């Protein structure tokens, strides 16, 4: 995983609550056995006029011009701003794969669904939970200012506005370290191999029926 560094980007405002994982990446794309290539199909049903086909080239498909991802003013945005309960529904990690593949690596919302939350961090996407009021303010500021940008400083847990105003945010320290250092969970866990083996031994004595 790449290390998460401080960056400044245009913010894409998607004014919608309860955006579920079927919307983020429709189910036909779950048939892939790869982790990559989902970016062009992010929000496929909302973004294109026709129905997307897995593994097909999406570059010439008719787009819905009024969908926010298609508006030129938000082109190359790496920050997505949404309303509450983003990422509800299925546990498909294909949803964060699509988001990352599209080039978004920070999402700001009043709340996120639990499984999506974990899946996103594991793929180097930073999810920031802000109050309803803060989110609402940013929506209004984007509306008012073409080219509106935010700077995301994970190290110091700050969102910095062009005006110089900052909003601090909370983040789980373990998840933060993993993002900043680009660490892979499995190798981190395997550093505790001995502890797992010790646990397993005691556990097996107590629950022999769980082992063959």
């Amino acid at each position, binding site marked *: 995983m790449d290390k998460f560094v401080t960056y400044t980007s245009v913010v894409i405002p998607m004014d919608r*609550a*309860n955006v*579920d994982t*079927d*919307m983020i990446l*429709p*189910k*036909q794309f*779950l*048939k*892939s*056995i*790869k*982790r990559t290539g989902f970016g062009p199909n992010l929000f496929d*049903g909302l973004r294109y006029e026709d*129905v997307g086909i*897995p*593994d097909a080239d999406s570059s010439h498909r008719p787009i819905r011009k009024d969908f926010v991802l298609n508006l030129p003013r938000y082109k190359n945005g790496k920050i997505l701003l949404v*309303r*509450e*309960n983003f990422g*509800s*529904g*299925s*546990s*498909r*990690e*294909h949803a*964060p794969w699509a988001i990352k593949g599209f080039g978004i690596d920070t999402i700001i919302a009043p*709340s996120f*669904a*639990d*499984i999506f939350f*974990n*899946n996103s961090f*594991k*793929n180097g996407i930073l999810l920031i939970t802000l109050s309803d009021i803060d989110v609402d303010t940013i929506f209004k500021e984007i509306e008012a200012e073409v080219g509106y940008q935010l700077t995301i400083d994970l190290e110091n847990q700050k969102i910095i506005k062009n005006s110089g105003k900052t909003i601090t945010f909370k983040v*789980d*320290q*373990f998840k933060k370290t993993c993002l900043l250092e680009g660490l892979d*969970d*499995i190798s981190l*866990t*395997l550093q*505790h191999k001995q*502890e*797992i083996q010790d*646990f*397993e031994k005691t*556990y097996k004595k*107590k*629950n*022999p*029926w*769980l*082992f*063959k």
Partner: protein
Amino acid sequence: MSERIGKTLYDKLWDAHVVREDDEGTALIYIDRQLLHEVTSPQAFEGLRMAKRKPWRIDANLATLDHNVPTTEYKTVEDILDPISRIQVQTLGMNTAEFGITVFGIGDVRQGIVHVVGPEEGATLPGMTLVCGDSHTATHGALAALAHGVGTSEVEHVLATQCLIQKKMKNMLVRVEGTLQAGVTPKDVVLALIGKIGTAGANGHAMQFKGLVIREMSIEGRMTICNMAIEAGARVGLTGIDEKTIEYVKNKPFAPKGDNWEKAVASWRELKTDDNAYFDKVVEMDGSLIEPQVSWGTTPEMVTSISGIIPDPKNEKNPVKASGIMRALEYMGLEANMAIKDIPVQYVFIGSCTNARIEDFRAAARILKGQKISSLVEQALAVPGSGLVKKQAEKEGLDKVFIDAGFEWRNPGCSMCLAMNDDKLPEGKHCASTSNRNFEGRQGAGGRTHLVSPEMAAAAAIAGHFVDVREILNG
């Protein structure tokens, strides 16, 4: 403080599986069982291979085919016409063979929806931690197991380390007292709950169900409610152990035998919430007031009772919610203030990990017996949750009841719950569905899903629109 605060069932299950925990509460939790299926596992196996890792404990894993398989007759993988579905099915076969993992493949009578198969085989046991790359893993909590969905990276993590990195959730109690009316089912209880607390109402919480209604409910009924805990935002749904749980598990193929059985049962009896345990959130419901439920919108919280009407966005003060209702009504092709009973039904789907167990088919068959589905219904599917459910139903003659009524009696799989195979709800059609999600396009692009119980789906099939199944039962 005079008395020590007791533990919830979730606390107990958690404590028994903590390998290590850091100061911030990030813990390594030992996982007893991982269930695998073809959609969310390929990238996990690929990751293992790339890192040259081996599964930590092969016997902790069990795989089945469900999301992509056809429900019409097929004999080999070559019979799966969609090339991409075929690749996923083949890939699961190759991966399980390479790593030595047991798989219920094509032609195996045990093959079926992962959340039906696990409990049915005794692969889900009380006291276990269980994960699967699927959000409806909450189902298994009905056996007093700590079970939840994980993403594919976590599937790989569990394969490689037998552990999961987790933070403890909060505790939420849903207490349902009273007695359910005839015709009101576990599905109605959970839909009414989601209607009440919303799809994010339990985010961050493990949800335990208690109360007389739950105690009187069968294990399969408890699976139905735990299954949909995720639709209220809870990754974990739980019910405590009782004699029914132990009776259910007994003699299942993967269940402990002999001496081990006695030992296991003794330890399982502890799997209950202490009387003085603390819950961060409590929701109380009166079961006797719950009516049969029908969802009218595009999230499971957009639900009301059969005697209800579709809400008017004009009456909704929260603007985000009001625009949500408007969008849903447009997608569903419905008008505000319309009676639920006036919604026409052209498709009926009885199946999915929520309602495709034997009791569900028995219940629907009771309504369908001697009846014919309406001429307005274009297709009605009955899709058992596993090969064993299908076999049992056929033994009881239920297949004939469905077929005589005009249903198609299919082979096990996820089918029209999410329409990854050929079973798709066409654009603009309304479907009375026993599944769990009514998201836009979930059952087929442009399809309009209404979540209901098996009894309500059967009743709608006969009438061609939604009807109150209580009226049918009361003659």
